[in-house]
């Protein structure tokens, strides 16, 4: 079963060249049952990554393009009056899929953002007074442009906290970009991807994650990390218990991807920047950047042993 994981990584790597670390993090995020936020400039491969993930995992896939005039109904679905039955019939929106790609989430108004984010948290949506469960598994991969770009509504901290990880892809290396230019078009490559992991396999893998051993020493390490953000003057506020839970889950998933059934500090260190950077803010930085450097600083401050 574990071979499947590396096969999945390889398959996505075929499309998204030279980004194995980001692909691994994205898989860890899904294994830990967390939602993923990809933040980068336009054209860096955010959508490609999410589409490739959906294909490899064989999940039902919907894409919502967020724009400033998007309404909550466009995401959740609406009830339409059916003349024949003389009743309102609910037409489910794109959110009723196993994997939802919320593209450019920060271009929509906060009202529409919160409709999605509520669904992420509850695993169900309430439309016209009726509560409808979302499919299981249910993942949201959201992409967003950096906040400094024009026409964006920054997600508030409370909503950022719902994403287990925030990834940034970054520019590809020269070699990767060269083979990208030489090879087939992305669209062709995407279509060539076949499903590696079935739905059942994914669920089984997800069930394996909590069974990965996290020793007392390791949990102490996570506690030291979290407490350090709470007690240090450098952070405007400390990490929440949800963040420490997420950190542990992500580290377990990472250990699973590393073909291990116990977590070592390196696993925590590998996922920590992705898990905490969007939840931290430097004290001296009102703009809200600086989470990445804080995460690096945090790792160098806290001894793993």
């Amino acid at each position, binding site marked *: 079963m574990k071979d499947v994981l590396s096969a999945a990584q390889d398959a996505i790597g075929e499309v998204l060249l030279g980004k194995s670390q980001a692909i691994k993090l994205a898989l860890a995020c899904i294994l830990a049952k967390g939602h993923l936020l990809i933040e980068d400039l336009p054209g860096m491969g955010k959508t490609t990554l999410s589409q490739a993930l959906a294909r490899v995992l064989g999940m039902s896939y919907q894409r919502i393009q967020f724009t400033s005039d998007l309404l909550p109904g466009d995401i959740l679905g609406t009830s339409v009056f059916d003349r024949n039955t003389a009743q309102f019939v609910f037409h489910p929106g794109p959110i009723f899929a196993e994997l939802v790609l919320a593209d450019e989430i920060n271009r929509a108004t906060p009202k529409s953002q919160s409709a999605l984010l509520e669904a992420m948290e509850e695993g169900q949506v309430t439309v016209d007074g009726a509560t409808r469960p979302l499919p299981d598994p249910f993942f949201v991969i959201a992409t967003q442009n950096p906040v400094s770009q024009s026409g964006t509504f920054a997600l508030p901290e409370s909503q950022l906290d719902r994403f287990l990880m925030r990834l940034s892809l970054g520019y590809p290396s020269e070699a990767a970009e060269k083979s990208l230019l030489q090879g087939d078009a992305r669209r062709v490559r995407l279509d060539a991807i076949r499903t590696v992991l079935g739905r059942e396999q994914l669920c089984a893998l997800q069930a394996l994650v909590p069974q990965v051993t996290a020793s007392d*020493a390791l949990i102490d390490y996570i506690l030291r990390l979290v407490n350090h953000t709470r007690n240090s003057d450098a952070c405007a506020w400390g990490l929440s218990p949800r963040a420490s839970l997420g950190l542990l889950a992500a580290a377990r998933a990472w250990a699973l991807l590393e073909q291990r059934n116990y977590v070592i500090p390196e696993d925590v260190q590998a996922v920590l920047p992705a898990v905490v950077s969007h939840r931290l803010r430097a004290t001296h930085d009102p703009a809200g950047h600086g989470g990445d450097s804080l995460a690096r600083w945090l790792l160098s401050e806290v*001894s*793993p042993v």
Partner: protein
Amino acid sequence: MTALIPRNSLAWLLIAQLVVLVPHLPRLPWWIAVLWLGCALWRVQIQRMRWGYPGRLLRVGGLLLIGLAVYVSQGTLIGLDATVMVLLLLFMLKLLEMRSPRDALVVIYLGFFIVATAFLFDQGIPLALYQGFCTLILVAALVGLQQSPARNDPAAALRRAGVMVMQALPLMLVLFLFFPRLAPLWSVNVPGSSARTGLSESMAPADIANLAQSPELAFRVEFDGQVPSASTLYWRAMTLSRFDGRTWSYDQRLEQRTAPPPDTAGAALVYQVVAEPSGRNWLYSLSGSVSSTPQVNRLADDTLRALRPLSGTFAYTATAHSDALLQPEGLSVSERRRELQLPPSGDPRARAWARQLRAEYGSDAQLIQAVLAHFSEQPFYYTLQPSPLGQHANDEFLFDSRRGFCEHYAGAMAFVLRAAGIPARIVTGYQGGELNPRGGYLLVHQFDAHAWVEAWLPGTGWTAFDPTFQVAPTRIERGLEEAMREEGSFLAEAPLSGARYRGVSWLNSLRLSWDDLNYQWQRRVLNFRSEEQLALFRHWLGTADWQRIGVIVLALVFTLMAVQAFFWLRPARRTGTPAQRAWQQLDRRLRPLGLGAQAGEGPRDWQQRIGCALPSQADLLAAFFDCFVAQQYAGGNADAALLRAHLKRLVRNLPRRRSAGLPVKRRLL
């Protein structure tokens, strides 16, 4: 354009200015406070970008105007009051010129200077505490200036300032105790000396009665040994020899001659006086005193003088010899003429009485006894509210009103003695004092002011006589309050004075405790001069040689630093689980090789890094780290012995020193 002054530090700055100015405001004209408010308002408006900075014309004009205003209000531009006032005004106006943080620094440093100037006017404990508070606020303003505009945390600034001031306290103590006490290079005139109450250089009827209304402190005395009874304590301040018919005054020529010490007969009584600032240079001493304090002179009339007027409290030690005689050898012709001097006319009845006494008694001593007997036998009345006297004051007092305070009795007696041909003079000073049982010292207040007579008798020299004792012995034995109990006039004009409520026991004990505190402050802090410093060194260090003291102080400082360094630099104590200790042991072993665990490095990363540098140890490394990871993270049983065995084997095989090929340092992330 340089950086602007952040808003929070401006608030700090204004608060600091206010607290620094407050102790000066009561001395200054009212318009200074208004001017400060104006400057502060303008500054705030500048900060809000509503108003601009004042132009050059305004600044120059304002400067001239201020010079003029100071000149008008003080009458001069030099002198202490005026210069401090100019400094304060410039301190305020600098607000309007403050463009960059550097200017704000200038204002704050000026604030520290102004804190120091306040001590020129007052050196009491309350002011010292308040100026400590000012220092704290100024330091907080300094800290606030370093904060960024975004990080605006006044409480943090205050906390940090508090810590810094606390850290400075030991240094302050060391400097206070050890810094050489240099004599001042210049002396400043006492501000407002004319306003002080106290004895004056002349004595007219009712002068001392007015002084007796003042509850202010004149001086404090501490005796070595038993405190003598109040009735023997005649504190001499000066002698008055010139009489113009109404006023006795002091002969300035006395100042020019210092006297040889008196013969040291009888028991020696050593006492230490801490005089309150009087603005004059006379001191208070018992009869026949010599002082060992260098800044004190002894004059021919057996009084002590300070070399400089007392601008602050002044402490001196003196020794009195109870049986010392004053000028028993006789008076010179000029002295005799001076001590017999009377105006050509006036007081005919007193002169006639003197002639009558002269004819009646052959010896001077008998004549004096007769005069004293006159005071005790006739219906004289001791009062703080004497009836006003006309042209022939002594006549009216002796034969008509017979109501008077000590200066009336002393003046009349000296007049009669001189008229009878006996050299006599008035002595003014204080009599008695209030014992503070807490400190074991005497408090002498202005209401203890007294005047008595000294007459020169052949054989015994100058001899003191107190006519007041004949009339009101309670005054001498138990103090003015008891003497005035019937009349109810004790401190009638000072209803709020603490001395008036001596009857209320808790209030009185509070007053005496506070006074004791002030006394200790004055003696031990304000009067800590080079003699006291040297005595302290001799007592604690066994030497008064500056070189040796320097060596001792340096040794002390180095010892302290060494202790501090030991606590800072000592290796981390062995704590934690066996696995953590093994980790630390390996870290210490590998550190000299440049392979110690880097900040935040995990076990496998570390293993890999060491493995790259020491490929030959890869197997032993893997054995140790596998065991470590298995026990720490993989849920294996913690077997400390096994881990130690792996570690031992690894450590034994590690190279001792760094070889050329080893990487020195590599960043982890």
